[in-house]
């Protein structure tokens, strides 16, 4: 299993990466949405993408829209991990095509719960 982590914070990539590695995932990292699109092309389709919202160059919402506009990524599970907590923002993300949503701050149990909902990972 492989996960693509997209966040401009190295600390957050490290935290999520450690959790995902403990669940048996190999990790590919990207530092913003454009980098995420490039990593998708370079490394192929992962089992899940975890993406932040607020990032330079290309934010997470625009990344989600770009991914969903490409037919080859229509079934790719996308999870947002972000500080955006308002219902309106969640609705925007789901309309754009995100499958699940984790609000910061989070811990391993919260992330695992969301993976279980998607039927992904060690929990599936």
């Amino acid at each position, binding site marked *: 299993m492989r996960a693509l982590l997209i966040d401009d*914070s190295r600390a957050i990539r490290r935290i999520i990466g450690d959790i995902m590695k403990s669940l048996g995932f190999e990790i590919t990292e990207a530092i913003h949405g454009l980098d995420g699109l490039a990593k998708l092309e370079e490394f192929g389709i992962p089992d899940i993408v975890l993406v932040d919202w607020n990032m330079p160059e290309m934010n997470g919402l625009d990344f989600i829209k770009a991914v969903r506009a490409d037919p080859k990524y229509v079934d790719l599970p996308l999870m947002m991990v972000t*500080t955006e*907590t*308002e219902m309106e923002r969640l609705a925007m993300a789901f309309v754009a095509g995100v499958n699940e949503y984790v609000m910061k701050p989070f811990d391993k149990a919260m992330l695992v719960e969301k993976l279980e909902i998607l039927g992904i990972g060690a929990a599936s």
Partner: protein
Amino acid sequence: MHPSQDDLISITQNILSTMISMEASPMGGKADPVAGKRLTGCISISGEWKGAVVIQSSEAFTRQAVCNMLQMKPTEVSDSDLEDVLSEITNMIGGNIKSLVKSPSFLSLPSVTVGSDFSFQLKGSRVLAETSLDCNGEQLDVLVCESVT
């Protein structure tokens, strides 16, 4: 709804304990500003509500936060590690504060200033709520400013 001092305390305590394994308690009374080398994180909120969230911490606090978050030794921590972690703390606190103000509002990207001899002012704003927290003997200041222009 406007964020209160209690909101700042509970949001910051939750983020520190959940993400950084650090406990924080409010310092009694009005604390003096963080002295010596310090880091200041700032994130703006625009839209229906306009203002900013400012985080000020000692270097020692941020170094400990980096060690806890990234499982590093203090001697391994670089300046970019300090800036990255305070930036993310600012982002998380700012995002949670944003959920308490009028919607729709939008977060900027956070900025971080590092130094020991600088002052920080947000022109055209007033302090809405502020608190100083004690984290293992190190100080962390959090304040929310509302634009008045």
